[in-house]
């Protein structure tokens, strides 16, 4: 069996080049690959495109916003390009307003389905989401069963940074509660999938095959989060 285990977060992201697309899952601060993002921040790759629910938060935690603030991102594809409240000014907000970073705003369910589509090898899909709004302008429209839909295209990525609860040496992954969010979709849609794991990585065969959320064939690299890593 191919060895997927890397010793450190830095080793696991060492070869990520400039200019690629990075998936960064997480929602409400849960399931964010903070250790891998911190390592990528140290590694210094730049001109990256990020796919994430948001472009970073106002809190002090390491997230995709850390890379935005460091000038490593040239574009963000996310469901929030402005905070819901004007008082929440993030590093992204400032840079976006100043024209220092590009962005594409995507409804959250469309973002999830575009990722699923990329993983599933499907050329696109029609959704009623955004019909009749600014976001649908310029998109192909088509009516199905009397209802208008817009065409949305897959969203593939080069590197998926993933946070899982459990993993085995075959790369099979298990998530806990709302940690799952975008993680399985991004793990399956990325060309190279790198996972930080909260528990010791167990031998193949020790996880129940019926309870696995992402099959190991999607997973390329696994790193156990060290005790002094970023946990919350």
């Amino acid at each position, binding site marked *: 069996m191919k060895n997927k285990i890397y010793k450190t977060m830095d080793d696991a992201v060492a070869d990520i080049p400039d200019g690629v697309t990075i998936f960064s899952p997480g929602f*409400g601060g*849960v399931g964010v690959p903070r250790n891998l993002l911190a390592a990528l921040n140290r590694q210094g790759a730049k001109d990256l495109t990020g796919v994430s629910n948001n472009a970073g938060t106002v809190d002090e935690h390491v997230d995709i916003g850390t890379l935005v603030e460091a000038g490593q991102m040239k574009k963000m594809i996310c*469901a929030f390009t402005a905070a819901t409240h004007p008082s929440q000014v993030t590093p992204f907000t400032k840079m976006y307003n100043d024209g220092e970073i590009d962005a594409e705003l995507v409804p*959250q*369910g469309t973002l999830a389905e575009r990722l699923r589509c990329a993983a599933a090898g499907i050329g696109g899909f029609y959704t009623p989401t955004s019909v009749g709004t*600014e976001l649908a302008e310029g998109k192909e429209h088509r009516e199905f069963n009397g209802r208008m839909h817009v065409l949305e295209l897959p969203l593939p990525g080069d590197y998926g940074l993933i946070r899982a609860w459990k993993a085995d040496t075959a790369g099979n992954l298990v998530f806990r*509660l709302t940690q799952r*969010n975008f993680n399985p979709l991004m793990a399956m849609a990325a060309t190279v999938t790198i996972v930080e794991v909260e528990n010791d990585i167990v031998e193949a065969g020790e996880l129940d095959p019926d309870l696995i959320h992402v099959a190991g064939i999607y997973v390329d690299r696994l790193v156990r989060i060290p005790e002094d890593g970023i946990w919350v």
Partner: protein
Amino acid sequence: MAEKVKLERQAMCDRLAMEFQDGWIVNLGVGMPTLCSNYSDSSREIINHAENGVIGYGPLAKEGEEDRHLVNAGGQKVTPLPGMACVHHADSFMMIRGGMIDVTVMGAYEVSENGDFANWRIPSRKGGGIGGAMDLAAGAKRVFIAMEHTTRDGATKVLKKCTLPITAPGVVKMLVTDLGLFEITPQGFKLLEHAPGWSPEEIQEQTEAKLIIPDDLKEFRFRS
């Protein structure tokens, strides 16, 4: 006439929650709508759905009892209930677009008499915050809105036509503001209940759209 009062946010959300029917799957938006979960009625079972893929979660977790892996759509730590299930984001929005959600409650900047609403972008600010709002608006069986009737500057938010970019056309079924409860009918806003001390004429003065005032107009219903 009773003393004129504007409704508190909790009373507004209580009133929408009173409309939830037994067995409904309910999605509460971030901010004010989460207050709907503070209203409980033991005669009904409500199943909470959050866009991050948790179905059947319970009340907010008390300090010291939080689980770092369990949050609602606002990122607040919540508690598990028996029967709770977790899915990934595409499955969560499959439920939303697929018509599994009986009602979604959202905040808004504006609502118009044809059921359009706006809650994601203010043109004077670059970018927008959509989150799951467009998917929920397009997919949920009903959209309820909770918002103040006017802006801080006193401009009405209850309009003939939205001035801001809309989130979805023609989907709002019910609106609660600090002045009353409104149903959006094919003919426009119908005032169902007025805040204490407010006459229909006074509410109309705060509203751009023409209100339908039914003969059986009632005073606002508070939790008992």
